[in-house]
């Protein structure tokens, strides 16, 4: 159709296509940023997750279960194993410290450990996970005062199935 190569370049030049791509790209990115900023619920998810864990492992100011390797937190707290453990979008970390000796008694974690480091690094970087920390003082069966620290993180952006 375009026998005249000069005309071909004039109407369908790479520059024209480049301008379209830049135009479409700018609008898509701007709309995406606008929408994602309004609906980022990762911090809410991290907070809800922490409270879910606290509610299921503590009762009447005492820990319900020893946090050993065989302890299945997800089963006990009705949390979906595939979503929490395998998706890479969530992290739960529990640390139990003796308040008298400051000695860490037990540690337990499940989920993507990389998110824990993102929490430590995060300042204003939006791509890093949102984190939540809750500290609760409890007593054990021997009336020791213990500090239960629960750290949760969510990097669940959504849009696609986990």
């Amino acid at each position, binding site marked *: *159709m*375009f026998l005249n190569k000069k*005309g*071909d370049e004039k109407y369908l030049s790479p520059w024209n296509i480049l301008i379209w791509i830049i*135009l479409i790209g700018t609008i898509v990115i701007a709309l995406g940023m606008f929408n994602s900023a309004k*609906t980022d619920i990762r911090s809410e998810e991290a907070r809800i997750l922490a409270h879910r864990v606290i*509610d299921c492992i503590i009762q009447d100011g005492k820990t319900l279960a020893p946090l050993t390797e065989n302890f299945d937190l997800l089963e006990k707290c009705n949390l979906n194993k595939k979503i929490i453990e395998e998706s890479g979008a969530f992290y739960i970390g529990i640390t139990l410290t003796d308040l008298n000796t400051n000695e860490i008694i037990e540690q337990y974690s499940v989920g993507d450990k990389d998110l824990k480091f993102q929490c430590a690094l995060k300042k204003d970087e939006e791509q890093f996970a949102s984190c939540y920390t809750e500290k609760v003082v409890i007593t054990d069966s021997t009336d020791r005062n213990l500090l239960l620290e629960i750290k949760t993180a969510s990097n669940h952006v959504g849009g*696609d199935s*986990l």
Partner: protein
Amino acid sequence: MLLNKKGERLITGTVIFVILNLTVIIVLIVAVSRSGSGASLSEEAYAKQIALLIDAAKPGTTLNIDITEIYLLARDNNINPNVFISCETNEVYVRAAPGQGYRFNFFTELKQCDFTIDNAKRRLTIRI
């Protein structure tokens, strides 16, 4: 009729140039108006809110969620509204405009998969 072949090529080229530009502009207008109407944002907001409600609810809770906005948006977009909870994949799916809709996962392992949609009252009921 057109003896001047250079002129003929010029008209054809201009027409193609205009058609291509119009196509790009129409696609952009449709995409921006869809986003501007709030359909995609509402799909996402409802999917995320429902997922958060499920995650935050204690066992035995019944959630009643008003989804009138989804119905109105779907009506404006001439499609049937679709709100669905998949207990197999732990997903909330909301669709109120032409396109794929929006899906969002909740992390709660539901003991029962009990949800109903009242079309008359435009209400979603979930029993946790």
